[in-house]
Every structure is written in C-alpha cells, then in structure tokens.
C-alpha cells in the first residue's frame, strides 16, 4: 500500500491519479481470530488499530453489517472537544483530544482535524458562573486552553451572532475551548481502517452478526451472515444496537436506551463561521459549524422518545430551525440540503461504559450518545488495552456497568437517571 506523501500526491497529480492502490483489503472472514470486534464504526476500527499497534495483537477482525462508517461514525456533526468537568470524563476526553492532535500524522491520513475553537454561548449570570467553575476545573487539571469570554471578545471573534438587546436569548458571554474543533468523519473512518488493515487486521464489511454461541461463561463462536467465526475474545462496539447484541449473548438488561439524534447540512455558503458555536438554554439546544465544503452542519436535541429508526422527524426540524434563527438570524434564507438521524445508546447518566462483562471473554464499549465521535481515539485506545491486558486502566475504572450500584453517576448534565434528558 502506498504511503501518502507530498511527492506521491504531486506525482499522481501529474500522471492521471492512476498510481493509487486500494486503501484496505476486502477481507474474507477466516475461521478463527484472536479478537473479533463487532461493529465497524470508529470505535470498532480504532480498537482494532490499537490492538495491533499498542499490543501486538494482529489476528483481529472487525465485523460490520453494512459498510464501515455507515452508522453514527458517518452521521454525526463532527465536534471534537474535551471541555468536560466530571472526574473520569475530564481525563478521558483530554486524552482523546491529545490523540486527535496527532492523528493525521499517526495514521498517515489527513483527517482534517481543524482546531477552530468551541464556543458555548452563555445567557445568564448563573450560566456564566457554572461555566467558570467547570472551566477553572479544566484549567487546573490539564486543559489550559479553556477560557471565559466577555461580550467584546465574542463580538470581535464571531460577529454574526444575534447580539441585539431584544434577542430571544440575549448573549452574556461564552465559554471557549480553543483546541477544540471538527474533523472530517469519513476520513477518520478510512484512516483507521487503512492503518488497521496495514497491520494485519481484517476489516470485513457486509457481515452481520446474527447470533452468539456460548459455552459456560465464554463466547466461543460468532454467527454471521457470512458464516460462523470462532473468537478468542470479543469486543462489542455497536453504538445504538448494544441491547440487541447483549440479548444475542444471552445477557439481561442494560442501563441503556436507544434514542435517535438528528443532524442537518445546508447548501454550501462562502466562509461564514470559523468556529463551532453551541447554544443551550432551557429546552433549546443547538450546535453549528461550517464544513470545509461550505455547508453549515448543525443539530439539536434527540427526539425525546425512544427509537431505533434511523430517520428524522419534523418537530425536531422546527426546534432546530427556531434555535438557529434565535442565535444566527442570518441563516434565515439558507436552504437545507440534507437531514438524517443516527441511533445512539443513551445511558442512564449520559456517560459511557468501557468495561468487562459477566462473560469472561466479552468486553463492552457502549453508552455513547452526543459525545462519542470526539471519544473515538480514546475509546479505541482503552478498549484495546482492556482486551489485551484484561484489567481496566485507571482512567476507565469508573466506566463500568456496576457504577450505579456503587452510587456513582458520571453525570455531566446533572440530569439524573433518565436517558431522554441527557445531552
């Protein structure tokens, strides 16, 4: 496989782009793997890559029922940040952001990570105080790029926001993380797939897991639409479908519900917004950035009711349009190009699970909702570490399924044990 380099790009440009190889093999399933990763989203692919790279485990398969990145990896609004304040979350997402900062280089693939700042608008003195508390915590514990901005700085940096005195939600300032930004989601998927393949991992598409065979407390065989596959260890990374796979493994209930989250993209515009802007106030929730192609990429809340359907609905279109108009009225005449939905795992405290399970050789990566894209590198990193070494790293010790029994909720939003309220 060709390594990408400036010379390579130049040479192929001169010779009709004919010198490129496949980015990864179209692997056919083998009878046995040391590790089978179920789910070819970003988390699954990153896990396989770090298993090979960090732990020298190369006999690995990633099984994907559709095409890699066709799930939430390719449906999200691509925001990457580490402005989390809860112990556990803070260290985890900061580690992820550090991995993002070197990812294009590491994977030899341009993931277009653009650290353009994440600007969370503040609309009340209480919100300013709350943000100051969280951002001070971050500054003191390893994220020095967290800042609280007053109106003059915000106006100078993002001039198009609705600053008028009679705005529905007058703006008082903003909480800003400067190293945060966006990345090209498809590129990250392809980059991880290519880098994993290069280290021997079989990336197997159109291979749906339909059953899981157990013997005593262990999984022995994975039944798939392309035949049975024996597995030494199994890692589950299937985003909104966790409960279904959990059921296939003969396990009971989980602290998870499947909810759907919608996203939108507008027609391409000339450069308008050079940051990620986020707005949340009462029931309104809105986040927006401009892609490198010019489309305004934005989203809002989940649908408020449980759903496995990967499609949108009109009440959320209205919600999001209202939020857009209250924050960026200049978007009023911009046309919507596309609108879609992804099914995410909403956990009971809004935080994820990266842990061992009641089965000896089954490892779980689940419970991601609004924040799983930014987490991809770290989720893969720590899941690989867990699978390889059979013990949780200090950083993921509390992301286990039993934390609620211990009285621990890692609840960034303070919304309690109700999935539909997290965001």
């Amino acid at each position: 496989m060709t390594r990408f380099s400036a010379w390579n790009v130049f040479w192929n440009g001169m010779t009709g782009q004919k010198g490129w190889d496949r980015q990864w093999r179209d692997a056919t399933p083998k009878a046995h793997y040391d590790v089978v990763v179920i789910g070819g989203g970003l988390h699954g692919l990153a896990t396989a890559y770090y298993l090979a790279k960090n732990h020298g485990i190369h006999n690995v398969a990633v099984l994907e029922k559709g095409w890699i990145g066709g799930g939430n990896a390719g449906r999200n609004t691509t925001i990457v940040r580490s402005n989390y304040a809860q112990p556990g979350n803070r260290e985890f997402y900061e580690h992820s952001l550090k991995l993002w900062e070197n990812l294009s280089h590491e994977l030899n693939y341009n993931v277009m990570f653009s650290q353009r700042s994440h600007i969370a608008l503040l609309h009340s003195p209480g919100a300013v105080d709350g943000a100051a508390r969280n951002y001070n915590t971050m500054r003191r514990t390893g994220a020095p790029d967290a800042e609280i901005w007053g109106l003059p700085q915000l106006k100078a940096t993002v001039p198009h926001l609705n600053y008028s005195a009679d705005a529905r939600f007058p703006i008082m300032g903003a909480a800003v993380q400067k190293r945060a930004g966006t990345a090209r989601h498809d590129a990250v998927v392809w980059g991880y797939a290519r880098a994993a393949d290069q280290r021997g991992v079989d990336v197997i598409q159109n291979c749906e897991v339909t059953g899981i065979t157990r013997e005593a407390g262990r999984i022995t065989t994975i039944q798939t639409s392309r035949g049975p596959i024996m597995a030494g260890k199994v890692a589950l990374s299937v985003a909104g479908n966790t409960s279904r796979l959990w059921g296939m493994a003969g396990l009971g209930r989980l602290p998870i519900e499947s909810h759907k989250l919608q996203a939108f993209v507008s027609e391409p515009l000339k450069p308008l917004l050079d940051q990620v802007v986020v707005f949340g106030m009462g029931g309104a929730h809105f986040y927006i950035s401009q892609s490198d192609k010019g489309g305004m990429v934005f989203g809002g809340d989940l649908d408020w009711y449980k759903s496995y359907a990967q499609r949108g609905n009109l009440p959320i279109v209205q919600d999001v349009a209202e939020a857009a108009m209250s924050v960026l009225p200049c978007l009023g005449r911009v046309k919507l190009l596309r609108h879609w939905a992804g099914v995410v795992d909403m956990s009971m405290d809004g935080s994820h699970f990266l842990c061992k399970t009641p089965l000896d050789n089954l490892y779980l990566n689940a419970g991601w909702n609004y924040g799983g894209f930014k987490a991809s590198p770290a989720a893969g990193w720590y899941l690989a570490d867990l699978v390889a070494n059979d013990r949780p790293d200090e950083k993921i010790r509390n992301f286990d399924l039993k934390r609620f029994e211990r009285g621990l909720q890692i609840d960034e939003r303070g919304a309690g044990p109700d999935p539909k309220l997290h965001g």
Partner: protein
Amino acid sequence: MIRIHCPFCGPRDHSEFSYGGDGSITYPALDAPMEDWHDAVFLRENICGVQTETWQHTQGCRMWLSIDRDTMTHEIHKVRPCHPGVKTLLRTEQ
C-alpha cells in the same frame, strides 16, 4: 409526525405530548431491597419492537396515557388512560 389517538381529545400530533418513558417499569415498595430499586431505576429492556410507554397530553387534556408503540416503525398499537378509573369517572359525572 406520529399521530396519537388521545382517548379524551381524539387524534393529535405527537408534538402535543411529552414522552414519559418506558411504561413497563413497576417501582418496588419504598422499603424494598436496594437491588430492586437499582434495577427499576437503571436497567431497561430497551425493546426494538412494540413497547409499552407513558406519554402525557401536555398541550391538551394533560392526562397521562399508556401507549403501545413500535420503537422501530413508530406505529401506535394501543392507547389507554394510565388511570383506568378516569374514563368511567368522567362518564358518570356528566
């Protein structure tokens, strides 16, 4: 848009309602063991298919309803008042 046939107000768009959550959960007695409370508060069947859930007609009669809905197709199979006595009560008072 999902249409919900409210037994009190007739068919309405689902945006008039608030989703209450999984209606199959029965909370244990207040002095029940911790494990029972843990299971009721945190663990979910998370059915892909027909599940019973609660909705409140917040923009209408404000009644709580128990609804059987397919979480994959969003088809609504059954709607009934959460409190079975409410309908009879209303009828006898008229």
